[in-house]
């Protein structure tokens, strides 16, 4: 799956879970300071990612991810591995 498609899908998820305008979400957006996510939000997002991307984010994954770009890269790697 190309990155752009993952990014667009992530924007929809983040906008819905964090109640922010999808147009205001960019790859550089920091999940906590820019988009207002707290630890509960991140756990909810991980749940949606599990459903939508069939990838079970670990607590370490959640702690490592800072930006939308980080999340996008992680999911790109996962989908590339699946495709290989």
């Amino acid at each position, binding site marked *: 799956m190309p990155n752009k498609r993952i990014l667009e*899908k992530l924007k*929809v*998820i983040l906008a*819905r879970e964090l109640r922010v305008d999808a147009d205001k979400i960019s790859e550089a957006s920091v999940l906590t300071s820019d988009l207002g996510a707290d*630890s*509960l939000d991140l*756990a*909810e997002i991980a*749940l949606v990612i599990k*459903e*939508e991307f069939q990838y079970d984010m670990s*607590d370490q994954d959640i702690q490592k991810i800072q930006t939308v770009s980080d999340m996008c890269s992680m999911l790109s790697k996962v989908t590339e591995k699946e495709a290989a």
Partner: protein
Amino acid sequence: MPGRIFSVTHRIYFNETNAMGGVVYFSNFVKWQGMVREAFLTQAVPEWPLLIEEARQGNVNMITVEEHSTFIDHVYFGDVIQICIQASELRRMSFKINFEMTKNSIDRVIYRGWQKLAFQDKKGSLMTVPGALFDAVLEHSPVSEVEEYKEKYLNSENRLLNQ
């Protein structure tokens, strides 16, 4: 069926007042949040004993993530307060309980508060709200909140993969 309100009445005794004219000491309002919450859990959640057993075995832990209070009027020794609760901000891993207090059967809110609850599994990771509890939470939430929850999480047409 959603829209129900759970309530508890309580008479104020000396041990809940302070030295400043017998007014109820502020921390009691937070204590009452816990009292009403736990009355709700024990009376409105039929499977609560099973959840407590799970908690005793360390498989689940209920955590209060946030708490807020707005004090509108005093309460004194002898007053009878009624605290009504409903849930809101329903999510799969958390929900809010909203508290509204009146006193002496007068239809005027004298205190509002809320708290957000979440759950941890035995590893300390956040987990989804236990189903048996969540059924009671849905029942005690405004209809609009339940509809929003169902639209967001249960409506398969909303799933992104189907787009």
